């Protein structure tokens, strides 16, 4: 029987995988940690705040990803607690949807489902992440904060994932696959289906238009958790029309 002491588990993993980079996450593994999250969850607060990066989201993804809490059990728990009327069960549906895609369309996981709708072709995007993204030194304060959170904790709010993915693909013009691989290195709930299909959606290779955001949106939804000052986030500032012109000057009129 392997010791359940965390320091022993960390030492064991370091011995088995000496190549593995970084440190352990403050997020604990195991069924008891998962159950504790369920007990703390406030469904009413979730419904009002879930799109904000400091919102009352469950953060149960890592446990669902590894089957510690089966998705059907989480659904039953939600029904029992009365979450069913809100958006919670629909959010769980995304996990089921992506798993179905992985089983029935495995080629979608790493290949572009369709062309980019950005005015660029796949060849216009870099194959690899630039060093300043890997080190979290882009000079865009909010983005650097998100990167630090990803690398330190292995967890990001869903909205934060979208911001970071959009920055990498659209501001820096890097192939979504490079970003997806990087997320899978770090995210405790990193699952090729959920992760990669979300990157494809942001990129526009599985959707009708690219997902992008501006500083106003960032200030509204992430202003309480990260530096969203204009002075330190200038590349993100502007109206959506301005940003469209800067990021997608060659895009057509389909969107």
């Amino acid at each position, binding site marked *: 029987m392997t010791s359940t002491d965390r320091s022993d588990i960390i030492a064991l993993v370091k011995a*088995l995988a000496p190549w593995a980079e970084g440190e352990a996450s403050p997020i604990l593994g195991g069924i008891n940690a998962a159950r504790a999250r369920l007990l703390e969850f406030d469904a009413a607060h979730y419904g009002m705040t879930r799109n904000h990066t400091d919102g009352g989201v469950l953060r149960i993804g890592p446990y669902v990803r590894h089957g510690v809490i*089966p998705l059907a059990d989480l659904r039953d728990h939600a029904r029992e607690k009365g979450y069913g009327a809100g958006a919670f*069960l*629909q959010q769980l549906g995304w996990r089921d949807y992506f798993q179905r895609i992985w089983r029935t369309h495995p080629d979608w996981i790493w290949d572009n489902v369709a062309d980019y709708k950005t005015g660029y072709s796949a060849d216009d995007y870099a194959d690899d992440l630039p060093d300043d993204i890997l080190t979290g030194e882009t000079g865009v304060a909010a983005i650097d904060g998100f990167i630090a959170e990803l690398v330190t904790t292995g967890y990001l709010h869903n909205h934060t994932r979208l911001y970071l993915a959009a920055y990498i693909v659209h501001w820096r013009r890097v192939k979504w696959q490079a970003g997806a691989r990087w997320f899978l*290195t770090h995210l405790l709930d990193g699952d090729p289906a959920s992760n990669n299909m979300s990157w494809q959606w942001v990129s526009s290779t599985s959707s009708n238009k690219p997902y992008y955001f501006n500083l106003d949106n960032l200030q509204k939804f992430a202003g309480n958790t990260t530096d969203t000052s204009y002075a330190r986030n200038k590349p993100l500032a502007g109206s959506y029309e301005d940003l469209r012109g800067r990021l997608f000057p060659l895009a057509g009129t389909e969107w």
Partner: protein
Amino acid sequence: MVTLVWVHDGAISRDHPVFARAGDADAVFIFDAEHYRVRGYSLKRLVFIMECAVHAGFDIREGRYTDILQELTPTELFVARTPDPDHKIVIDTLRKTTKITVVKERPFATIDREPDLRRFFRYWKRAKKSVMKPDA
């Protein structure tokens, strides 16, 4: 007659139906460091996975999936359904010498036939009823 449950990292739970199907079979979780190295996992991912397996009380072995499972020489192997291509390769390899039973998870949504998966809301339109209502 040795029956065994292979607990892979997509189903680290004794609540998975694979255990009901396997009866009182032993269960093993294999930490395949090479599998994770190829995927580029960071230490925090590995610690999280190991912590989940340890806290579930599974017998933990270290090594390549196929090697360890072949060493344990089960006559029948039970495994939770997995979409992971690496897991599928292991299953296909062992199937040549061992009876394998793949067990599905409890369904989240009950849908007659697979919907068009190009858009989430086409899926959700058909899944919603069974997800929202226990008796749907």
